[in-house]
């Protein structure tokens, strides 16, 4: 009997641990993901929530000032049920790191975001075209920042950019964005 009690105690301990692990599982997908991103000098957690609230970590991509590369920036924000929309909204605000440059044109707003068959359909207002400063470097960075930010989520494999609800062939006359695009690793700055 003493033996059984000991085992029961052990089982209860294990059960407690399991429950803790499962509770942890309920955090949105992104929480696991950002932990996997290798740390780098330019990455920093910002917008720390008040203590007591469980944060989720979201990675967005901003440009280097020379328009050559994208750099991930990790934000810690209050948990919600639409982390992908939150990621795009963070992409539409100025970077916390002043060394980096936001790539989406001023006035650009997220109209809608849906995910179907692992493809994110991200719909912006027409300011993404009308307020575009032009230049292929800018257009490359806009497209790559949107695609790379959304493909940080494990369930998003491709991204289709929409403007005012419609597919567009190009944003400023260079890039071909008429079909769903996959992540580009080559434009992310390495060895920072």
């Amino acid at each position, binding site marked *: 009997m003493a033996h*059984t009690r000991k*085992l*029961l105690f*052990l*089982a209860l301990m*294990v*059960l407690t*641990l*399991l429950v803790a*692990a499962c509770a*942890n*599982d309920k955090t949105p997908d992104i929480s*696991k*993901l950002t*932990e*996997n991103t290798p740390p780098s000098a330019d990455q920093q957690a910002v917008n720390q929530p008040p203590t007591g609230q469980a944060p989720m970590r979201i990675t967005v991509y901003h*440009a280097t*000032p*020379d*328009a*050559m590369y994208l750099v991930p920036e990790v934000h810690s924000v209050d948990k919600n049920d639409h982390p992908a929309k939150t990621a795009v909204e963070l992409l539409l605000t100025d970077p916390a790191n002043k060394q980096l*440059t*936001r*790539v989406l044109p001023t006035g650009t707003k997220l109209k809608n975001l849906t995910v179907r068959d*692992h493809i994110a359909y991200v719909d912006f207002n027409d300011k993404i075209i009308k307020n575009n*400063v*032009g*230049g*292929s*470097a*800018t257009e*490359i*960075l806009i*497209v*790559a920042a949107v*695609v790379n930010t959304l493909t*940080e*989520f*494990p*369930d*998003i*494999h*491709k*991204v289709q950019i929409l403007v005012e609800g419609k597919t*567009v*062939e*190009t944003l400023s*006359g*260079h*890039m*071909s964005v008429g*079909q*769903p*695009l*996959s*992540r*580009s*690793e*080559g*434009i992310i700055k390495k060895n920072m």
Partner: protein
Amino acid sequence: MHRLVMTIISLAIFLLPLQVSNAAGDAAVGAPDAKPALQAPSLKNDAAVLSKLDKNAKKQITALRWANHIDAVTGLSKLRLVLDVSSPVTVGSSIIGSPVPQLSVDIKGAGPGDIKNTYEFDGRIAESLTVTAAGADTTRLIMQLPLMLDESDYKVFTLRADPANNKPFRVVIDIGQKIPPIKFNFTAGLKDKVIVLDPGHGGSDPGAVGPGKTMEKTITLAVAQRLKPLLEKSGAKVFLTRNDDRDVFGPNASAVDELSARTTVANNNKADIFVSIHINSFTNPIASGIATYYYQKTPYDALLASSIQSSIAPASGLLNRGINAANFYVIKRTVMPAVLTELGFISNPDEEKLMNTADFQQKMAQSIYLGLDKFFNQAARLGGGQ
């Protein structure tokens, strides 16, 4: 009672290592370039734990799915196959050259399970896949390919189970699209070559505008008009997509009509080479330099880009941003080797001033001309295929 307790304990032992190991886990299929090396160190632990506890469970492939991916920046295509397996496996692969190009992948530690025996693809990157059992606990995949692969054209790797995201252990096979070996048989020299020059933007579309109000469309046309007589003097036949400040398709046409009107000029005139001339721009005025972009569709596009960039970069005196693969409409939809050059940043006040000078515009025309001459000489030496 004992039984229940033991079950709970073994379940916990089974699950906990996965929870812990997941912290360093994979970014899953969302990150097409995930490197296998990142997962390698703890692979052994998972395998040991699972083989001890999971002896009676059937080790097999539980699902196979595939998708074509286009890199957002370079436009390069790749086919990604993902196989879910019930427990950790090791993989080996080899390329077979005859009777047809094939990629063979052995998955050791799992049988084929209930997945189909054959899969058909669209033929661009792979034709078909057959799945067979190769001895106990090994599955052999044979992919038939349209073109022979090099070692660098494909990657086979594993991703550990990621219970937090409901992902089992996976085997991933990535195959990049080969450049079709199109024969062009270029001859040396510019004589009788058909060259289409595309001055970027125009008419209702000014392109980028500098802090001093210089418009991209003005500079691109000026350089193209200076380049045309240089090429003609050497015997080339030159077409400009526009000869003045206008839209090529028509005023305020859709962006896609405008771009396809430009590629149509090159495709209909059976051009040997297409050169699109642009000026760059960025929100930060410190961005600077000169760059050439290409889309890898023939064995000559990268050569054309490097011939031009190696000529224009030193002549410009600007920062050399190099040659880059890019998913640009006009270089993708033209059927001949094509490049898009970016002759400095209009958003950079120093470069804006410079590009307004006749001296700089002539230097750019002259160096693109020399780059094109160099290209035909090199392409002729290469013969048809590469």
